[in-house]
């Protein structure tokens, strides 16, 4: 057997796990590992400018590929800078392995230089964590970390490694385990057949069914099965913010996203349905609105791989614990073997009602105005056109995120990448970089605002170093739009600290980092300049688009009300 130091074992284990990219930042506690990386040719290390960006890059990579993203940060501030990104991944169940350096074991607990109890600090926001106690256990710990991160309900896993564990002169036998063994962890592989039959029977007998699908469909690679089942039963479909693309966004059966900024049609369909078929969704507070008034006439079928998600906020009538893909496969098989047929008249009258709600215009209507000022919604529609609806779109957090989710209609899973659970400003740009690195031929755009983009703008430098020609679509309204919207609606337009004074000249800023900047202030320039930007395949282009500051995101549910209670514009409500 080969003899390796702990530092070499870290690098070799990652390579043997099939890792291609590591996103990181060196520091004292990691120097042995970085020295081992220096001699490594197969792994590519991306040097970010701030550790938070490393975690979001790894996150973007994970969301686009389904594989765990790998982060390497040093002890103390390196580790704490990664916390926001770890929490972001945790809230959206994203597989990630974070290797953090730690002070030497004999210094742990002494308040040593750059010491932080990383296992303790990260505990509430990880799926699991390890602290390495002996160099020889490094391969096994790393194997377990990947297994835990990627299996079951995915999530981030921290591996904290004290510096003495990586000492280059202490060598041990190395072999990378083929499988991780954990006696206390066995994620489900199939759903309960009896429950599956009951669910199919309930759907067949439903008068007003609705398929409410979440991020679990994307993470669980079940878009194909779900689409097949929705087609077979002619189900209306709503995808949550995390589930967009799980069902084709341009299809007739798709009603738009539900919830706080969901479509009028989706929210009404949800309120009035008699069977709510929840697949990999978690009844998040941004979807259900007032729990007491939620779906008063619905029986609920809930499929999720995590039993703790079922009946957490809304009680399920038919709970099914299992991976969404195999459960849906089994449901399809069950459906084929049954002799019962749907009553087509009943289904048709439900669709007639839905089509009345939907009308013939946009799924999300808005006032286009007189064209003197660019509406943010129009920018997303133009982006959809220019990219053919087939780009990887990441977003930051705020109004622009909601506009992107409403107006870009995703037909494929893994294309819409945003921080849904934690709502992390600064997420979109590094996430886009992580995707571009893995899919250099694909169009990757980050929809952002002048508030969010400044939370990780330093990464413009990383993009130049590694040649990552992403497109930044900055909906610049000169204010923290979503905060301002709430201040308009609930605080009598008292704009407490929601505007940005002294915004930088983003064009010059992009140029200073060696990229291209294009400013758009006139509606007639919007499409041509956007086309020009996306035609520059090998350059990062920062599109700074001046949009209407006064615009609000609608619909907006009325807090504490039912699904159907919404503001539809500044003056009109249901």
């Amino acid at each position: 057997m080969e003899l390796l130091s702990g530092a070499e074992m870290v690098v070799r284990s990652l390579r043997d796990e099939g890792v291609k990219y590591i996103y990181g930042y060196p520091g004292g506690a990691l120097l042995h590992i970085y020295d081992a990386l220096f001699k490594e040719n197969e792994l590519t290390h991306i040097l970010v400018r701030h550790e938070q960006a490393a975690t979001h890059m790894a996150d973007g990579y994970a969301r686009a590929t389904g594989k765990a993203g790998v982060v390497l940060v040093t002890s103390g501030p390196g580790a704490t800078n990664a916390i926001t990104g770890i929490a972001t991944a945790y809230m959206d169940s994203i597989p990630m392995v974070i290797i953090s350096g730690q002070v030497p074991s004999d210094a742990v607990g002494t308040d040593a230089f750059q010491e932080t109890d990383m296992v303790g600090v990260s505990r509430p926001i990880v799926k699991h964590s390890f602290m390495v106690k002996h160099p020889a256990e490094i391969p096994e710990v790393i194997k377990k970390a990947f297994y835990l991160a990627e299996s079951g309900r995915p999530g981030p896993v921290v591996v904290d490694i004290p510096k003495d564990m990586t000492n280059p002169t202490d060598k041990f036998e190395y072999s990378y385990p083929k499988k991780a063994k954990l006696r206390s962890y066995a994620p489900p592989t199939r759903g309960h057949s009896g429950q599956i039959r009951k669910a199919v029977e309930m759907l067949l007998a439903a008068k007003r069914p609705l398929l409410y699908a979440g991020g679990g469909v994307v993470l669980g690679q079940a878009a194909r099965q779900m689409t097949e089942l929705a087609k077979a039963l002619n189900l209306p479909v709503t995808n949550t913010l995390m589930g967009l693309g799980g069902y084709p966004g341009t299809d007739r059966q798709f009603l738009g996203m539900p919830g706080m900024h969901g479509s009028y049609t989706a929210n009404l369909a949800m309120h009035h349905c008699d069977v709510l078929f929840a697949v990999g969704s978690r009844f998040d507070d941004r979807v259900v609105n007032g729990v007491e008034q939620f779906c008063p006439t619905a029986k609920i079928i809930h499929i999720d791989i995590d039993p703790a998600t079922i009946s957490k906020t809304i009680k399920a009538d038919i709970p099914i614990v299992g991976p969404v893909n195999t459960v849906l496969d089994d449901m399809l098989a069950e459906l084929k073997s049954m002799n019962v047929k749907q009553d087509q008249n009943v289904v048709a009258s439900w669709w007639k009602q839905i089509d009345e709600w939907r009308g013939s215009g946009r799924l999300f209507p808005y006032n286009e105005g007189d064209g003197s000022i660019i509406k943010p919604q129009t920018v997303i529609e133009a982006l959809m056109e220019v990219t053919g609806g087939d780009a990887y779109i990441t977003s930051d957090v705020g109004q622009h995120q909601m506009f992107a989710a409403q107006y870009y209609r995703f037909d494929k899973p893994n294309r819409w990448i945003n921080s849904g659970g934690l709502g992390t400003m600064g997420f979109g740009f590094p996430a886009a970089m992580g995707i571009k690195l893995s899919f250099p031929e694909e169009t990757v755009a980050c929809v952002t605002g002048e508030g969010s983009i400044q939370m990780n703008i330093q990464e413009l430098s990383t993009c130049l170093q590694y040649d990552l020609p992403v497109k930044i679509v900055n909906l610049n309204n000169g204010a923290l739009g979503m905060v301002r919207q709430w201040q308009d609606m609930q605080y009598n337009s008292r704009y407490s600290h929601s505007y940005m004074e002294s915004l930088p000249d983003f064009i010059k800023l992009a140029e200073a980092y060696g990229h291209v900047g294009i400013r758009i202030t006139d509606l007639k320039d919007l499409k041509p300049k956007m086309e020009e930007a996306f035609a520059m395949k090998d350059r990062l282009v920062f599109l700074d688009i001046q949009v209407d500051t006064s615009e609000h995101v609608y619909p907006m549910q009325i807090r504490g009300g039912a699904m159907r209670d919404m503001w539809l514009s500044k003056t009109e409500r249901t």
Partner: protein
Amino acid sequence: MRHIISLLMENEPGALSRVIGLFSQRNYNIESLTVAATEDPTLSRLTLTTAGKEEVIEQITKNLNKLIEVVKLVDLSESPHVERELMLIKIKASGAQRAEVKRTADIFRGQIVDVTPSIYTVQLTGTTDKLDSFIQAVGTASIVEVVRSGVTGIARGDKVLSL
């Protein structure tokens, strides 16, 4: 309703902090907690009592089960079980009181485990109720110090919590 949840977990540093962290993180109630290694040195047995609505208890057991280090879990209060708590209690015992404390301890089948001219230290084992009743019987005015172990328990009959 009060529940006694008993679980086996990996006997590793950090496992206990995950269990405790879960309770504060998710705003669950925890009344008592005991933990010690088992006959298998790789496993610890942890017993805790909690109270809450059925939905909350369901979430607590589900989330405990989700912790990677938790190997197996049982809600003892769902079926017949034996539960015990140990109490050591220092009671003022001088003058006429001295005989009365001794009599009360005997009634509760307590043992006097330490004696000074003015103090009896009584050891008492039983359900939480029984220990509470003893404290009431003695009267808080006479109590100098109380230390209780928290509840531990085991299922009756053939039912066991093991790998």
